[in-house]
């Protein structure tokens, strides 16, 4: 790969987005899921990805994470083509992934779940402690339960753990897949708060959500998908919850 030559561009030149998805086509077996999805996320930007169930939002995130391989198209991270790289390399390059079903390591304790992202080369003890302190400040409940198996946490706590776990990688971008799905209203507001905190820290977020008001409030830009492709793209402030476009593509 021509990564070395391209890396120069990541220094400062703002024209290069953090993540660029270019005309990606993805198949599951024989079913064609993504029909040429293109989108970009700028450094530190929160981008919402809206659409009905089954239009390919989660698959888009999985394709970026390298969990499914596109048959056509490219994914570029900070100017470096990353299509075809294994997920563990992408995680080390700065992509954090919080999947829809959370995928907590249920038999591992909260602390061990965090260690899966924390035990990596080039991180010293001070940095580790600072990272842990940070997530334990944001999510005090995780500190309380640090020695409890992940599987014993409530749904909301598991969601916090999934986000905290991704934060251990100190990612440049977090792919957040339906973080508020099935959560109580109190938890939902806590999740939207953490999205804001991450944004203020300069972490980019690609947010897949069914909760339209939350997405519009949290994002700078939104993409609306239908049938495996992006149908609409605009600034989040240009849309309101009652916009005809929302009604058309999301049926609300």
């Amino acid at each position, binding site marked *: 790969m021509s990564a070395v030559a391209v890396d120069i561009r990541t220094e400062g030149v703002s024209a290069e987005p953090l993540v660029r998805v270019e005309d990606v086509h993805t198949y599951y077996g024989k079913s064609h899921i993504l029909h040429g999805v293109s989108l970009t996320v700028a450094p530190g930007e929160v981008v919402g990805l809206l659409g009905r169930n089954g239009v390919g939002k989660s698959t888009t995130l999985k394709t970026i994470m390298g969990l499914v391989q596109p048959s056509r198209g490219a994914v570029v991270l900070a100017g470096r083509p990353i299509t075809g790289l*294994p997920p563990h390399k992408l*995680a080390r390059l700065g992509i954090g992934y919080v999947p829809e079903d959370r*995928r907590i*390591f249920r038999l591992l304790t909260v602390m*061990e779940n965090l*260690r899966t*992202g924390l035990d990596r080369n080039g991180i010293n003890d001070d940095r580790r402690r600072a990272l842990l302190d940070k997530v334990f400040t944001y999510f005090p409940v995780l500190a309380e339960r640090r020695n409890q198996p992940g599987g014993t946490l409530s749904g909301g706590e598991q969601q916090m753990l999934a986000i905290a776990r991704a934060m251990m990688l100190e990612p440049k971008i977090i792919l957040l897949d339906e973080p508020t799905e099935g959560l109580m209203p109190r938890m939902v507001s806590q999740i939207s708060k953490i999205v804001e905190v991450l944004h203020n820290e300069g972490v980019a977020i690609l947010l897949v959500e069914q909760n339209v008001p939350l997405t519009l409030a949290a994002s700078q830009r939104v993409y609306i998908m239908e049938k495996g492709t992006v149908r609409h793209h605009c600034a989040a402030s240009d849309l309101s919850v009652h916009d005809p476009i929302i009604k058309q593509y999301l049926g609300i």
Partner: protein
Amino acid sequence: MGVAGQIFGAIPIDLIIIQTVNGIVTGMILALVASGLTLIFGIMDVVNFAHGELFMFGAYMGVLVFAATGNFWLALIAAALIIAVFGAVLQVVTLRPLIGRDPLNTILATFGISLVLQNYALWQFGPVARRIPEPLNLYFNMFYLQYPWYRILIAVLSAAIIGAFWLFLKHSKFGVWIRATTQDRVMAQAMGIPVPLVYTGVFALGAGMAAASGVLFAPLTGVSHTMGLDWVLKAFIVVVLGGMGNLGGSVVAAIFISLLESYASIVVDPSEAVIVSFVVLILTLLFRPTGLFATPK
């Protein structure tokens, strides 16, 4: 002893005690063989038919190092390390390319490896069994028997290796990686865990433990190219009874099976006592296919 007493009725208590000790000693070696096997299955869904040959190769490696140095303990450590490296190479060359294929592919591959290794050993070392002398020539009186301390040492060493391995799984970075990958390999990758490397590492660890058990066992019956067969078969029974991929379950199952065979050989010929294990295996598969000693989840 109460249960055994009821089953065997008129059998003298001293015989039962001797067979209990024998059963625990073989059980601990079996546990050492089986823990590698169950771990490999648990993490990569690979049924490793070559595991017995890694045990056998370990024993031969012990023979060679012992012949060169005269030091049993050096032979034990060297054999474990050499076979661990060998296991890593084997995994990279033969199993890594098959990741994601039908499990039947890996079964055939490991079966093939097993045949190749067995025949290589026959070609290289010949059909006559080799011997490693017991490193400890002390005996203690157990009823009418002069019982070798070495057997007790085997049990203690096997327990120590398994214990160390358990601590490694529980606390080390690689141990957390192994457990995370066993539970959810996709998410483990997404967390930056180099899953292919974890696979190779687990295979190497399993191979090293099999080799260590081979060397420990070698002084008892000698070393031959077919010595792995019995063990791998029993280890498979243990893995099924213990619940596939369950380390604690395998240890319990290994001791259980060995005790059972030990007691059975009081009343029947030892070569027939193996049948008891298969009966237990079949009953388990019929009535509790997730394993006799597995924690239900």
